[in-house]
């Protein structure tokens, strides 16, 4: 029966995961619910919480609580750090701690490998612990409930291998729900739903045991303590040990805070699976409440166990099972067992998913694709290949855990393995925190810091475990390595006043942090690394996430929005846009509740395409402001999103400089245009039309500034000025484009050729259009040729081409179901970059003409919302100047794919 129950529980789990994915596909994903997110965080509570806490409480009292109070008290800090990390990861497409650290420190593959190895060494024993917990609890329950429940199966066979079956089922689950798509950044709705479900099971099961023990076996918690008080041998449990109790309390809290933030499984649920950073708001109270509840009965159960099993040899780790069993309450014992299974399986699933991504991306794939045979065979099927590799990684991780469980873990208590793992994970903290708050932190510091921290951890915690297991001589514990007493693993450099965990944490973090800080200060940061440092530390300036509906309390007049749209988009387009909105909402659209707010966000989206996100918000705010009774603060709140304080004078100067420059350039352009022939008349009228948009918004803001000089405070002014500068820059860009084209056509263009990392460039272009893709919920798949040599090219020019192709792809991709694929290929003498989208496509006769100036396909019913119509023409010139080729392949209404080829050898070119 136990077997059947276990299997049915796992079947329910599969069903829930499947259902979760199904809901997600229908667009009703549960993952958007902040409570589901908060519950998924409780994957922090593993079998170690479930069984080990009671065990530790029974041995040493309250100190197990640090593991839960630590994260609870650090939640405000967690909120700050995680929001930043989420933002970085979502803009850079980062999906694991290993990627994060290696990306931040100049894409160091050494760091990626280091973090992966450290994670594997730290987490595999931890997974083994879960397997052990399941098999031990199974055995206890099976032994107690007797052979009747085994359906005549050979007991010993199942006894020995329950962990093995758990491993197999977990592997199946993780493969099914964790490796559905190649994009690691794609979330796993099924897994998260299942984890949230499991978190409820483990909590309810534990509470049920707690209530049973406290109110069935005893007369309440007071009674348990009263009886315990009468036993002198239990009195050490009532307080922390006067020797070192306080310092180990501190170090254990610290370690659990760091583990809570940087454990791969926490990173997976907090960052990778996160759909909205605002979910963190709710989590900061739901998560500690959960921890509180699941720990509430730990001490009563532990005390009760000690009282009930006085003088009997019973493993304290298993009190949650043995207490109900002793009372003959088999049902409750089975519930407790299922709670334990859910705690263990949720940890195994998420950890394995996270580790397999790390392992495949940082160790196995780089090694495999450097083998020419594999590279040739799988070049076009890299995605499928990666899925298989990831599946193999899952099996590998679980197999290693199982082996560990069968060998070393046999005689180690639950808690000690968990704490050793926490100390290992804590080593990531200096490079992570330093990486996002300190620009100077550099690769050498991070590498040396991690290696030293790792070595100290290994020597002080893992080495003694190996000695205990009989792999090395015991003398080294007493006399130190090579007989040097300063090198005793538990008393490094003579520090013998701390317990083993605190001791190891102290020394490893000390070495780790001081190497990071010291080496970063000694050596300067260079090149791409400096760029990444800048982006990671000041991520707010490099990304803007759309944060919800900002217009909740604002009343606007619909005609105002309408006329605004016409002002900015031109009467024709403005009219079309309004018609579309009306059609969508039906005849009675004016009577619909909240229609003004709807129209406001609609207008904002349309306008963002034309004048940029920040500008459109401000322009809309300006019409809302004029309405009576509106809180003026509301408007300012909109204006004041993620602003950077720069001196007002400087901005003013910049602005006037920029204006001056662009007016000179305008003059210049005008002269040139006048000189050229009649053919360019049309060209001029298009250009001036395009220039009206930024000019109108510059005028609007200048007027706001002029009219409200008294009421606006410095920061508001700065914000307005910032937008004016931005719009001026936009104009300048447009003018430059026209001038560029001119230069190309007259043959006076000079390229600045430098050897460049092409992937870096592609990623930069993706980051530049990230917001546009977000707005249309477009998915991006990237396929990078590994080991691509550096390409000689003009960085800025080619970046311009890439951004142009991507913006076009975004423009023509369908909303919500849009997919863009970017691929790089090494073709020997040249590299090929392709940008594929599933948009409306291009009909065959237009394939050549689209590269001409101001081309617009006649059958397009959507006019280009943004852009000059010069983009492809300039792109073609740029690529031709590189002696490359650009062309398009397309199947109308299915896809279009733009190809660029750049020669790898530019010798002889300027």
């Amino acid at each position, binding site marked *: 029966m136990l077997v059947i129950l276990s299997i049915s529980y796992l079947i329910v789990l599969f069903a829930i995961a499947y259902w979760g994915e199904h809901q997600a596909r229908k667009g009703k994903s549960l993952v958007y619910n902040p409570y589901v997110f908060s519950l998924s965080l409780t994957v922090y509570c593993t079998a170690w919480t479930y069984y080990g806490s009671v065990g530790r409480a029974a041995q040493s009292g*309250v100190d197990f*609580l640090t593991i839960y*109070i630590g994260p*609870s*008290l*650090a*939640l*405000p*800090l967690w*909120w*700050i750090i995680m929001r930043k990390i989420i933002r970085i990861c979502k803009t850079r497409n980062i999906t694991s701690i290993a990627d994060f650290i290696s990306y931040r420190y100049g894409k160091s593959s050494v760091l990626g490998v280091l973090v992966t190895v450290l994670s594997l060494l730290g987490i595999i024993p931890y997974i083994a612990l879960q397997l052990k917990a399941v098999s031990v609890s199974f055995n206890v329950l099976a032994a107690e409930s007797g052979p009747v429940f085994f359906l005549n199966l050979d007991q010993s066979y199942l006894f020995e291998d329950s962990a093995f079956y758990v491993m197999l089922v977990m592997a199946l689950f993780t493969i099914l729900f964790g490796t559905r798509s190649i994009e690691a950044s794609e979330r796993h709705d099924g897994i998260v739903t299942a984890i949230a479900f499991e978190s409820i099971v483990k909590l309810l099961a534990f509470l049920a045991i707690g209530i049973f023990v406290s109110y069935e076996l005893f007369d309440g*918690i*007071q*009674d348990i*303590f*009263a009886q315990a*008080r009468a036993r002198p041998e239990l*009195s050490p449990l*009532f*307080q*922390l040990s*006067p020797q070192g*109790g*306080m*310092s180990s*309390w*501190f170090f254990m*809290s610290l370690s659990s805070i760091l583990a809570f933030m940087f454990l791969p499984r926490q990173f997976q649920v907090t960052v990778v699976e996160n759909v909205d950073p*605002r979910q963190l*708001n*709710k989590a*900061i*109270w739901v998560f*500690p*409440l959960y921890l*509180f509840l699941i720990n*509430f009965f730990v*001490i009563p159960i532990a005390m009760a166990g000690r009282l009930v099993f006085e003088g009997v040899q019973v493993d304290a780790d298993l009190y949650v099972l043995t207490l109900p069993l002793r009372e003959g309450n088999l049902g409750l014992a089975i519930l407790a067992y299922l709670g334990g299974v859910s705690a263990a399986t949720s940890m195994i699933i998420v950890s394995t998913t996270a580790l397999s991504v790390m392992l495949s991306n940082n160790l196995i794939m780089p090694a495999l694709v450097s083998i020419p045979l594999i590279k040739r065979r799988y070049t076009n099927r890299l995605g499928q290949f990666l899925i298989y590799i990831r599946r193999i990684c899952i099996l590998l991780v679980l197999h290693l855990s199982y082996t560990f469980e069968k060998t070393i873990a046999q005689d180690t208590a639950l808690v000690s393995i968990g704490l050793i793992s926490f100390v290992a994970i804590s080593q990531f903290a200096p490079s992570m925190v330093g990486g996002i708050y300190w620009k100077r932190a550099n690769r050498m510091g991070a590498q040396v810091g991690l290696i030293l921290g790792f070595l100290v951890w290994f020597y002080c915690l893992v080495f003694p475990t190996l000695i205990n297991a009989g792999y090395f001589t015991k003398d080294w514990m007493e006399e130190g390595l090579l007989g040097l007493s300063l090198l005793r693993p538990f008393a490094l450099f003579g520090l013998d006043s701390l317990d083993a965990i605190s001791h190891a944490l102290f020394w490893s973090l000390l070495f780790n942090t001081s190497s990071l800080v010291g080496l970063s200060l000694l050596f300067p940061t260079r090149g791409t690394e400096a760029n990444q440092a800048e982006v990671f530390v000041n991520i*707010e300036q490099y990304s803007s996430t759309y*944060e*919800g509906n900002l217009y909740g309390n604002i009343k606007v007049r619909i005609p105002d929005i309408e006329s605004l749209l016409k002002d900015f988009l031109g009467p024709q387009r403005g009219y079309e846009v309004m018609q579309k909105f009306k059609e969508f909402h039906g005849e009675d659209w004016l009577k619909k509740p909240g229609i003004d707010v709807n129209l406001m966000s609609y207008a904002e989206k349309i306008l963002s395409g034309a004048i940029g996100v920040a500008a459109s918000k401000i322009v809309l705010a300006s019409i809302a402001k004029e309405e009576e009774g509106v809180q*003026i*603060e509301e408007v*300012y709140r909109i204006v*004041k999103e*993620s602003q950077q304080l720069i001196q007002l004078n400087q901005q003013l100067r910049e602005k006037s400089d920029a204006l001056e420059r662009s007016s000179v350039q305008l003059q210049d352009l005008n002269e040139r245009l006048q000189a050229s022939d009649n053919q360019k008349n049309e060209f001029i009228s298009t250009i001036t039309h395009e220039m009206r948009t930024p000019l109108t918004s510059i005028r609007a803001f200048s007027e706001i500034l002029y009219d409200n000089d008294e009421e606006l*405070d410095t*920061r*508001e002014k700065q914000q307005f000025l910032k937008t004016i500068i931005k719009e001026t820059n936009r104009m300048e860009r447009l003018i430059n484009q026209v001038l560029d084209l001119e230069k190309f056509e007259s043959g006076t263009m000079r390229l600045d050729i430098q050897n460049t990392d092409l992937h870096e460039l592609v990623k930069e272009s993706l980051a530049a259009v990230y917001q546009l893709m977000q707005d249309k919920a477009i998915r991006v798949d990237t396929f990078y040729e590994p080991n691509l040599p550096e390409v000689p090219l003009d960085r800025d020019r080619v970046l311009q081409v890439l951004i142009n192709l991507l913006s076009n792809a975004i423009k023509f991709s369908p909303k919500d179901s849009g997919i863009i694929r970017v691929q790089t290929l090494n073709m020997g003498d040249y590299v090929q970059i392709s940008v594929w989208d599933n948009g409306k496509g291009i009909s065959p006769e237009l394939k050549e003409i689209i590269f001409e100036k101001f081309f617009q396909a006649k059958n397009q019913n959507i006019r280009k919302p943004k852009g000059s119509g010069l983009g492809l023409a300039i792109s073609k010139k740029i690529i031709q100047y590189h002696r490359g080729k650009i062309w398009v392949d397309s199947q109308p209404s299915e896809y279009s794919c733009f190809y660029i080829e750049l020669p790898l050898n530019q010798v002889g070119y300027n």
Partner: protein
Amino acid sequence: MARTYKTTQRSQLLLVLTLLFGVFFNYPILSIFNKEVFWGNIPTLHGFLYASWILLIIILFWVSRRLSKNS
């Protein structure tokens, strides 16, 4: 302007909150309760830890509502 909020200031407030909690749950404050004294039959250390934990959750609940309002 009234009620202007700044991201950096908010972050600093949250950081201070964590530091305060950290001080509250560590030596020497903890040593006040780390004695063989009982409230009812509950050891003071246990009582203090669980009671202040609940208090902490209530504060976090309030913080969470403020954060949701602002962002």
